[in-house]
């Protein structure tokens, strides 16, 4: 049974993701791990309007009838939980970050907050970027090292101890990407304001 406090966390973060335009009406998903169980958004449910019955409780290792209803990305979520210390996962479609992921192998924030919190975000690629074996292989590996990773052209997967921690990394990444975009349009040389700026690429 899903605790009321846990359901409310899904509702609140789902709503915030939609309101912040980090997902489309039916896009993205959320999950949490409880012991050997995973609670994940139902396939087709709207993150911005989660209601009773929109969360599916299924096994971390073994499939059960819950998978009939679970999000397309369940297989990726399971793989991430098995490979990393994650207790919660937020998958979203941050638009500017997706745009930058098309031409970069990593996103290195240039703003203070993004540098401070993220340092660097890797971009991984998969030919079929939805619930695929390639994603299962590559995303968990990236998330062992980083708390958020971009899947080229698709979106991001962020991990945390709670949904709101993972949401913070998503929100921060998109803000940093918007700043990168804005700085490019201003197109003026940067004045140094961080010590060891070049080292952020080594994070």
């Amino acid at each position: 049974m899903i605790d009321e406090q846990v359901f409310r966390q899904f509702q609140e973060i789902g709503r915030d993701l939609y309101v912040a335009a980090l997902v489309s009406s039916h896009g993205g998903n959320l999950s949490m791990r409880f012991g050997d169980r995973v609670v994940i958004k139902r396939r087709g449910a709207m993150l911005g309007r989660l209601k009773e019955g929109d969360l599916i409780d299924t096994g971390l290792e073994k499939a059960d009838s819950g998978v009939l209803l679970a999000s397309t990305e369940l297989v990726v979520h399971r793989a991430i939980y098995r490979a990393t210390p994650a207790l919660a996962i937020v998958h979203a479609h941050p638009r500017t970050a997706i745009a930058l992921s098309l031409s970069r192998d990593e996103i290195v924030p240039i703003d203070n907050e993004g540098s401070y919190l993220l340092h660097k975000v890797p971009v991984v690629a998969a030919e079929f970027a939805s619930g695929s074996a390639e994603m299962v292989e590559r995303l968990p590996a990236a998330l062992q090292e980083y708390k958020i990773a971009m899947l080229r052209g698709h979106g991001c997967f962020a991990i945390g101890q709670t949904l709101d921690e993972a949401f913070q990394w998503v929100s921060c990444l998109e803000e940093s990407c918007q700043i990168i975009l804005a700085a490019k349009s201003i197109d003026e040389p940067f004045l140094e304001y961080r010590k060891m700026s070049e080292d952020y690429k080594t994070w």
Partner: protein
Amino acid sequence: MQGWMGKTLEVDLSSGEIAFQQLDSNLARLFLGGRGLGARLLWDMVGPEVDPLSPDNVLIFCTGPLTATAFQTSNRFSVTTKSPLTGTVLDSNSGGSWGMRLKRSGLDALVIKGRADQPVYLEITPEGASLKDASHLWGKTVPETTLELGQGPGRNVLCIGPAGENLVRIADIMNDGTRALGRGGVGAVMGSKNLKAVVVEGEEKVGFADRQRFRFVRYEASKQLTASPLTSQALPQFGTAGVLNLVNIIGALPTRNFQQAQFERAEDISGEAIAESLLVRKSACWACPIACTRITKTAHREGEGPEFESVWALGADCGIGDLEAITEASYLCGDLGLDTMSTGATIACAMELAERGIIDCDLRFGRADLLEGLIRAIAYRKGIGDELAEGSRRFAEMHGAGEYSMSVKGLEMPAYDPRGMQGQGLLYATSNRGACHMRGNMLGPEVLGLPKLVHRLQVQGKAGMVVLHQDAAAAIDSLVLCKFANMAVAEEYFARAVTAVTGVSYSTGDLIRVGERVWNLERLYNLREGFTRADDTLPRRLLEEPVPDGPSKGWVSHLPEMLDEYYRFRGWDENGVPTQRKLEELGLQDLAA
């Protein structure tokens, strides 16, 4: 590999043999150092047939790959042994400078075996290691011994006080005069070996695989420590006792042996009160920018402390609100080599037994005037002190009242009531060395909002958080760093630091996995000792007696609901035994019984 010194020292006190050996690099890579390496070495050396106070037990002092690198809080070291208090695997760690010096003496680990015929101390200098007569030191207090053995620049002293000599099961080992390897009776093990002290000198440098990367990680960590109000304001201003008022306000400060969860005189003994009335100056361990240590002064003397747990155990838990008396009691515990937490909690247990008429003496909650005499009686095993020296569980059981020992696996519980912090209760119940707030602390998520606030009374989902915090703590204890640094600096920084220093690549996930390996190894050790699921529990009071009033009123611990989820999360069976698959994942399959 850089970071490790590549050398260990084994001293057999029975034969007098002293042998330097090469560090097993595979073990170092898998278990890092500190608590992890100690547990792995203990597994091979001390089996279930060994009495903790016999010559066959060992003391394993370990540094870690980050020790002495000048990474923030890289001063720490640990000692591992079989506990004479709990019978479990035990490690205890400490700050100051001794650990840094042990590493600079060129050692990753120091193993002490056997028992000397006469009191001795061990001296390690660049010229070598030697055992020296300590007859003239036996009976002396920690400050006296530390002074006499020449603690000073380049020379650091670790010793026991009279409590350790007298095999008090709640005796600690002290280093640098005032820092404690506090819990589980490590001092009694050292006393049982007739080893009074270990003195170290050395200036060897730690190698770095990538110094520039290390500098960057350390710089980034310094930003986090500066930005966090916890590490840059609260701890430096108020010390660890800064958290006391906060825990009291939410109704989770155990009072009068956990009969209540709020103390009416909390403000009088808080970190703020210490800062206002007793604080002379703050102090810091080597390479620590936080400086939580308090140098204080009472009407009678100057000393170090008291820490939060000491203030609580000798204060609220005993119903005592006299800050001067608590502080002097804390000083005295340090002088005599006693764990302040177990000492206070055992006295609190005795106070409850006396108030209930189970024992016949004048002990009562609030009797600050009795503290000094009781502490001396415990350290020298005089009168009722001889019974209290056995720790609260043995003491309470002697009087047919075991349920009033507020302990898990025999280790007295720390200063957070599991009824007001549900995750903390699960943490205590499952902790491998007995009830402990330093094997992962739910204070972060349940009270301080680190990394994010989770309702303290929420039950579902707490198991996963406890597992993660336990594994992270085991990794940090193996590096060996201070948990307070981790309140501002996340594990990803530590993973990058150890990678930069050693040249061995550890992702954040890898580092947590080291912690998980250590946790499971410790679990295997306790299972081999005969511990079972039945030992993963809390005192009856916390499971059945609701908090009588305050913000946690009506709550008991929901441990049974959380424990099954915890075992499933860990990949253990319903009896709490790691599955073969889990052991293979962790590379521990060869150790399973």
